[in-house]
């Protein structure tokens, strides 16, 4: 709600990890896109979004995630998600996003597989 959306960015070798906090709506999506663009412009091509603390999303927010997914695919990069709440995973599955982005159970699993 009015509690603002937050995001932390960290780097593990070539992998950029974004940890989100809060509702992924249009504003939340825009914040993710902004951080994504910054690291993309710095040369990053491998991205992991840890959504453990984003248990509410909406289709406007997710459409922004599709934008960054498209950009990643076009650059022959890789984008994945981890720690998704069941409803988030279900949403990504319904939309077909899971055909283009892997979902890992934990951040550790993701880092291991993507490094």
């Amino acid at each position: 709600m009015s509690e603002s959306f937050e995001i932390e960015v960290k780097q593990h070798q070539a992998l950029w990890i974004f940890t989100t906090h809060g509702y992924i709506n249009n504003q939340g999506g825009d914040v993710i896109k902004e951080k994504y663009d910054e690291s993309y412009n710095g040369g990053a091509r491998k991205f992991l979004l840890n959504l453990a603390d984003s248990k509410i999303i909406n289709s406007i927010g997710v459409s922004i995630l599709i934008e960054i997914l498209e950009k990643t695919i076009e650059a022959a990069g890789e984008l994945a998600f981890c720690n998704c709440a069941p409803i988030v995973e279900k949403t990504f599955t319904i939309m077909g996003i899971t055909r283009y982005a892997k979902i890992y159970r934990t951040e550790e699993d993701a880092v291991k597989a993507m490094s």
Partner: protein
Amino acid sequence: MPKEPDRVVELILPMLPDMEIAATRTAEAVAEMMQLDADKTAEVSMALIEACLNSFEHSQSVDRKVFITFRVAGDELQIILKDHGVGFDPTQVEAPVIEKKLHSGARKRGWGLRLMESMMDSVKFESGPDGTTITMIKKK
């Protein structure tokens, strides 16, 4: 002691940012009343968020309100959401396909109706120049 009332909760929300979250809070309380499990409750909330956002964004309703009725009947949760907007024809809405969306220049949006239908057991639209009514059912 008067007889037990119907398990009906009514909510009228202004079309303002984040008010869809108020709708989910009420939905959660109703879901708890019928002991709907956590996953199904989250699915109801997601469908409700999408329905609210559509009314907020597209209805052009002048009173800027959505009218939501939650009704528990046996093992079913029925949600009726109304706006007094311009209406639309759901049969004219193109079904979204991720492969098309992933092309540059394509509109990424257009998932709301799909999500509502996938999250609920049934979704029915009645829409016309007096507005839109969506009836959604979730079974326990």
